């Protein structure tokens, strides 16, 4: 049940992450000076924590989204499968977040 709420929460947070992505692209198009100003903020310690959070939201929402699409197609919508795939989604999201954060953020 709470995985379903988490899908909604991560989705909302990803909408904010999309704003950060748009700001990044707009700053890049505006020239070197504005890009370095945004890069300074995005490279700060507190912002890196945000990036790790968004990374988790991204991988969780993506993996759980596949689960939702499967349910829409009529697959895996029984208690046993729901429990197992729910665990898989959590493990995949945590591992992918750790790997991505290690390789690309820090």
């Amino acid at each position: 049940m709470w995985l379903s709420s988490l899908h909604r929460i991560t989705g909302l947070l990803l909408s904010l992450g999309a704003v950060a992505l748009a700001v990044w692209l707009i700053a890049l198009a505006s020239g070197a000076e504005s890009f370095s100003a945004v890069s300074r903020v995005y490279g700060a310690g507190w912002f890196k924590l945000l990036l790790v959070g968004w990374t988790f939201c991204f991988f969780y929402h993506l993996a759980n989204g596949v689960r939702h699409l499967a349910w829409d197609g009529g697959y895996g919508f029984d208690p046993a499968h729901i429990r197992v795939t729910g665990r898989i989604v959590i493990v995949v999201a945590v591992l992918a977040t750790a790997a991505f954060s290690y390789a690309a953020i820090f």
Partner: protein
Amino acid sequence: MSLMTPLNRVLGLGTAKGAGEHWWLQRMTAVALLPLGLWLAYQLLTLGSFSYASVVAWVREPATSILLILLVVAVGYHSVLGVQVVIEDYVTGKGTRAATLMASTLAHVGLTIAAVFAVLKIAFGS
């Protein structure tokens, strides 16, 4: 007398409104975002340097420009639909809800267009 069939007159006017299209577009953009999202994650992972020059060079590659625009549009669509569901579930009061939905849509359209323009400007810029 109307020349519209009864079905045409009620389509989209019942309690469900445009729920069918909403549901379908949400899934369609979700399917599009699976490869596009993984692509972006992989690109950010292998970009190496996030300096101005290297990021501009990356965005300027035709494949990157095209996929970034597809991603930005799919994200904008997927996000505005998702946020709409949340607003409809939690924001009560007809006026407040309408205003919140309008604000969300305007913000989504504005940012999506701005981001697409940014990619095009970098792609075609000197």
